[in-house]
């Protein structure tokens, strides 16, 4: 063998070894299943594909948990992990699934809305593949996902995403972003099918409210807030004023822009009778000028560069040495959701929703988010679902 082909053989071998090692890690991440213990309030679990045939057998399909009260009332849909790199959304949704008991009305929860995105990563940004939450019975391991669905599940991307049905031109990447593909269509690309199925839940089940949980950069003005269109703004405003007065954390309302299409807080309200709300809590991990994207940064939100920027008044949220711990963010989301239910029920007593056994902000901060997750090892196997 000539020297040239010896070098080529070594290079081929090195590339193959690296490809296999990295490939196995990514394969394991994509196929890692997170057990969820359905709490006493869960009355049935269906699949998103029950509302859109085209999702069956695809990476777009995901669990839909129903928590139905004994008394008839209003209905709320909670959507989490629309963007799986904002995992506090999914963690908050699991608090509801594993603990909430509905006395009146119905709660519908989709903890892993963009299932494909939850099995994707952003290698170029050095995202961790997993993170763990400390619980009373040990650590619970979760996948860290990405904002967009994986190109393995929806490919190829167009040069420009032409939004359906408004024909607004959006970034090519947004065709895999389930907060740009609303209201979706049954025969569109996979992510449009995902949002279409959620629209069908709202239409068929007459959902009164829909809450889409997110996290946002501290340097982005739309953070620590509820984004709401005109039809939802009264309920949202009362909710933020109440949590601020009663529970002492800041929150404000941002109006949903009418000219920016594809977003849940825009299209749900325009294409269904449901009142949409998009919840944002500060997520320092997403900010660009931070140190390495570590699990610690994700969980405690402490970063020296953001602290420096905070002193220069360049952040849109209060920020000090304590960072923005995940318990605080999840606690805010729990309280805001409970307050939205309260405010809506006050205005619509015939469609009221009554719910208990969900912790509020102070309790989540005191006990930690992991306190509210149940041990799958001790749970009845029939109550365990995998996300």
């Amino acid at each position, binding site marked *: 063998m000539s020297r*040239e082909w010896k070098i080529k053989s070594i*290079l081929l071998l090195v*590339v193959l070894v690296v490809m296999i090692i990295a490939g196995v890690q990514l394969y394991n991440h994509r196929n890692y299943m997170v057990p969820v213990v359905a709490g006493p309030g869960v009355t049935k679990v269906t699949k998103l594909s029950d509302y859109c045939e085209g999702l069956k057998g695809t990476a777009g399909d995901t669990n839909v948990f129903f928590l139905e009260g004994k008394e008839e009332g209003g209905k709320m849909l909670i959507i989490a992990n629309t963007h799986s790199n904002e995992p506090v959304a999914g963690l908050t949704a699991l608090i509801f699934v594993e603990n909430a008991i509905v006395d009146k009305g119905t709660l519908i929860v989709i903890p892993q809305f963009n299932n494909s995105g939850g099995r994707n990563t952003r290698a170029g940004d050095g995202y961790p593949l997993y993170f763990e939450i400390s619980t009373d019975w040990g650590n619970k391991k979760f996948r860290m996902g990405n904002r967009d669905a994986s190109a*393995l599940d929806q*490919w190829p991307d167009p040069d420009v995403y032409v939004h359906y049905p408004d024909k607004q031109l959006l970034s090519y990447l947004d065709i895999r972003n389930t907060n740009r593909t609303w209201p979706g269509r049954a025969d569109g690309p996979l992510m449009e099918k995902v949002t279409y199925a959620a629209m069908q839940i709202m239409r068929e089940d007459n959902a009164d409210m829909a809450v889409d949980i997110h996290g946002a950069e501290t340097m982005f003005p739309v953070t620590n807030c509820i984004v709401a269109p005109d039809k939802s703004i009264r309920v949202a405003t009362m909710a933020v004023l109440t949590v601020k007065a009663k529970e002492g954390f800041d929150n404000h309302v941002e109006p949903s822009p009418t000219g920016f299409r594809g977003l849940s807080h825009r299209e749900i309200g325009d294409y269904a009778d449901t009142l949409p709300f998009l919840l944002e809590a500060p997520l320092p991990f997403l900010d660009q000028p931070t140190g390495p994207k570590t699990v610690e940064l994700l969980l405690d939100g402490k970063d020296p560069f953001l602290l420096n920027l905070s002193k220069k008044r360049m952040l849109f949220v209060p920020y000090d040495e304590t960072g923005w711990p995940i318990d605080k963010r999840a606690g805010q989301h729990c309280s805001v959701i409970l307050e939205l239910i309260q405010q809506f029920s006050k205005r619509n007593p015939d469609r009221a929703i009554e719910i208990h056994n969900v912790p509020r902000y102070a309790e989540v901060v005191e006990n930690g988010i992991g306190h509210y997750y149940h041990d799958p090892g001790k749970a009845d196997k029939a109550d365990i679902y995998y996300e």
Partner: protein
Amino acid sequence: MPLIMVVYYAISIYLIGMLIWNFVREKKSTNDMLLYLIVAVPLVLRVLRIK
């Protein structure tokens, strides 16, 4: 499979062919040899449909 997908797979196969051809033809630069292989990785995975 939609026509556009078929076209994209065809483009991927064509690019893999070009990269292999360049890899074989390269005689001196180890850097270039390595780069041809690295660039081919996602295309090979796509064509083999490995998820």
